[in-house]
């Protein structure tokens, strides 16, 4: 095949020059296509900006709204009541300590009698439960109007009797009762009949015995019991006065809300005259102060007369603790009373105060008949604590797994381990949450009841759903992220380090732990951080498993704090957003939480990138 003679073709030079282009919307086609893709590529940026925008749009008004609410709270005098009310809450805590001390002391004496009585009752309940159907039918028949035929009644009675006998025969004598008593009770229970209201004689006797012992115990620990009662009653007068004030304040507030709607400017109708409405409160300051003084004196007196001795060492400790905490409490009460005159309902609420109330507020109280508070701290503590525990659990395992697969595992092991760990990523978080509810919660609780583990603080645990449970599952979720990133980091360690270390006669282990892991450490740190980001942002697991108690965890429990339930930033949004009306302070508060979450995620990302960048610098 010959190429056509060059004469028949246009000159090469002329071919190379640009022809007239068909313009497409003023730009040529290639540029248009390029622009199309470029605009699509900016979608990520646009989405990020939109996220921020929409979060801000819904959440931005939170501060003004919340400020308005807090202002109403102050104007209407609710804050005034809370000045006294808040320190008074400590009284409840002290009371409960006292009560626990008293009941522990009483328990030392009444324990046996009560156990015996309860055991007998338990037996009776068992029989009743077993024969529930027959008893119910008989009762129905008896209550029937017109009355059922005597034959039928007789038949029903017989059936009931037969069932009762059968049930009673199956009973086992509990350890608290002697076999003798057991047999007797069995016999008496055979006669159990809904038509006869009396208790079986033995049961009645046991009950009476318990009552007697209990009375004796009360006599023995009379000073203590009296002290409890006295302490409980100490603030009664104060409470009465305060309740009246609270009622008044609430009425004022209700009036305001009615007029204003939620946070909107008053439209028509006469605004509430706060100056007037506050008078009943401010005028009561003297009385209130007097009542507070009265209370402190009473409480002090009780504490002074209270015996130091109690039935058990635990009770003694409780008493001592109560005594130690009382002076602070009373001082706080007095101080609160002293600060009353300085309080003014007309003092404006500054934005700084609102911000502090949100970011440093220690209570998240919603749908309250008194006052809603949107304090961020309990949620943040929950989120951070859970994330920390999860990362603490996940980090060693993922790093170990990464080191093992990257450095030690055989090909076949790798082929098995990698897919399994990567598969964890595919497990939806809601499924893990469900596992936490259905399986892990009971498992952890069960383990915490094992005898030889009781040295662990706060074992046995109270709540099935708690932070630790959630953290375990979150750790599992974080493992694949951390694992694959850490493995990448290890993989990226230059081979020449390996050469050098090997040539110096290092063993495999030495090479790995002295050279490779240190060289990859910022990569691993980034992996951990990104895992943490994943964990903090996770919603379903914490919503289902963390227990959803909105309170700052009680750190006085030491490390055992992890077994307490908590609520989280993500969980609160998921749980409450569906139930609030748009535009309310609560709605806006939830969006504020969203904004903070968003910022946290950006921050975590930024930190991780900073680590990775350092890592890459170190490599080059």
């Amino acid at each position, binding site marked *: 095949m010959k190429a056509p003679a060059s004469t028949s073709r246009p000159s090469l030079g002329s071919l190379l020059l640009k022809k007239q282009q068909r313009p497409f919307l003023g730009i040529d086609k290639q540029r248009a296509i390029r622009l199309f893709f470029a605009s699509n590529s900016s979608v990520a940026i646009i989405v990020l900006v939109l996220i921020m925008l929409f979060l801000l749009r819904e959440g931005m008004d939170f501060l003004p709204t919340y400020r308005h609410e807090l202002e109403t709270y102050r104007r209407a005098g609710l804050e005034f009541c809370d000045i006294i009310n808040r320190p008074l809450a400590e009284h409840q805590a002290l009371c409960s300590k006292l009560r626990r001390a008293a009941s522990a002391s009483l328990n030392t004496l009444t324990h046996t009698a009560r156990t015996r009585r309860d055991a007998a009752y338990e037996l009776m309940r068992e029989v009743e439960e077993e024969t529930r159907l027959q008893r119910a039918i008989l009762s129905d028949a008896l209550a029937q109007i017109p009355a059922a035929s005597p034959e039928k009644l007789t038949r029903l009675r017989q059936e009931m009797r037969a069932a009762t006998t059968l049930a009673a025969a199956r009973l086992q004598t509990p350890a608290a009762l002697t076999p003798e008593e057991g047999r007797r009770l069995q016999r008496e229970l055979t006669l159990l009949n809904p038509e006869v209201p009396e208790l079986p004689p033995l049961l009645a006797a046991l009950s009476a015995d318990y009552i007697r012992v209990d009375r004796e115990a009360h006599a023995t620990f009379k000073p203590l019991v009296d002290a409890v009662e006295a302490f409980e009653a100490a603030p009664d007068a104060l409470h009465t006065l305060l309740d009246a004030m609270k009622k008044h304040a609430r009425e004022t507030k209700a009036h305001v809300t009615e007029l204003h709607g939620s946070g909107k400017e008053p439209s028509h109708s006469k605004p509430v005259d706060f100056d007037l409405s506050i008078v009943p409160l401010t005028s009561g300051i003297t009385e209130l102060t007097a009542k507070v003084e009265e209370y402190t004196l009473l409480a002090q007196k009780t504490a002074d007369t209270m015996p130091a001795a109690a039935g058990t060492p635990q009770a003694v400790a409780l008493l001592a603790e109560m005594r130690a905490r009382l002076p602070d409490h009373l001082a706080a009460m007095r101080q609160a009373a002293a600060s009353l005159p300085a309080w003014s309902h007309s003092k404006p609420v500054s934005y700084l105060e609102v911000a502090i109330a949100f970011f440093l507020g220690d209570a998240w109280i919603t749908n309250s008949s008194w006052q809603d508070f949107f304090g961020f701290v309990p949620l943040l503590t929950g989120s951070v604590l859970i994330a920390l525990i999860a990362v603490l659990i996940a980090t060693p395992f993922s790093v170990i797994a990464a080191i093992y697969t990257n450095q030690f595992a055989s090909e076949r092991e790798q082929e098995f381990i990698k897919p399994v760990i990567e598969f964890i990523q595919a497990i939806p978080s809601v499924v893990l949450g469900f596992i936490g509810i259905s399986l892990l919660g009971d498992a952890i609780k069960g383990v915490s009841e094992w005898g030889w583990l009781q040295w662990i603080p706060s074992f046995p645990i109270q709540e099935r759903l708690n932070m630790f449970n959630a953290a375990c599952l979150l750790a599992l979720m974080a493992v694949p992220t951390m694992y694959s990133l850490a493995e990448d980091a290890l993989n990226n360690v230059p081979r020449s380090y390996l050469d050098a270390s090997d040539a110096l*006669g290092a063993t495999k282990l030495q090479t790995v732990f002295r050279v490779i892991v240190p060289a990859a450490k910022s990569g691993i740190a980034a992996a951990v951080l990104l895992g943490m980001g994943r964990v903090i942002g996770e919603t379903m697991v914490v919503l289902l498993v963390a227990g959803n108690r909105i309170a700052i965890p009680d750190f006085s429990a030491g490390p055992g704090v992890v077994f307490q339930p908590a609520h989280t930033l993500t969980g609160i949004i998921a749980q409450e957003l569906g139930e609030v009306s748009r535009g309310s302070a609560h709605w806006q508060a939830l969006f504020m939480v969203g904004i903070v979450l968003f910022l946290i995620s950006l921050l975590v990302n930024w930190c991780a990138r900073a680590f990775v960048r350092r890592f890459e610098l170190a490599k080059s």
Partner: protein
Amino acid sequence: MSADSTAKTTPPPVVQVRDMDFCYGASPALFGINLKVKYRRVTALIGPSGCGKSTLLRCINRMNDRVPSARVTKGEVLVKGKNIHDADVDLTQLRKQVGMVFQKSNPFPKSIYENVAYGLRIHGEKNKSVLDEAVERSLRQSALWDELKDRLNANALALSGGQQQRLCIARAIATLPDVLLMDEPCSALDPIATLKIEELMHRLAQEYTIVIVTHNMQQAVRVSDYTAFLHLGKLVEFAPTAEFFTNPLEKLTESYLRGTFS
């Protein structure tokens, strides 16, 4: 073992390769190599690329073991009289006593001090004063002490290329090896740094037995006492350097030398 007998007789070769064949999988890389490395002398391995000189060097401390399928198929390698492929040879001990410096300087991303002390640390040395002493000694020997003594805790990666390579040498000699293997230690360096390393080799030769692979004929002339020429996996000629370059026995050697020096 040979150190005490130097005065009387010529010491036995520290490294002895006998009739060795070496394969990567099915493809042979070295054939029938016989080589005796003299005690406290510098032996240079030269030859065109791919001739197997690096492979031969890596046979001496069994660095080739890490390549799967690479193995010695015939013959043996003796270091200090011991066949290093014997079952009772511990790799870490072998490599402790046969140090190696690589073509591309590869200090660890740690401090200068930790780099030099690394070899001792992994062999269980914990005593701080021993470590200090060893670090100072090896840095002095590698002519780095004066430059670096004030910043031993600086990151080694911050050093210049030539300093890094000398640091790698210091790291290798910190464990007092008997043999020092150098795999084209200057090929990644500029002439001035190269010169410093060569000077260093001269001095180190008084205390260590050195085997060096080089591309650079002049370098071999300058630093080595003995030169071995490899071609296509065979050891063509092995002779004292002066003789080797002035009066080569083999035609192949001659043409190789001429080709480069013309």
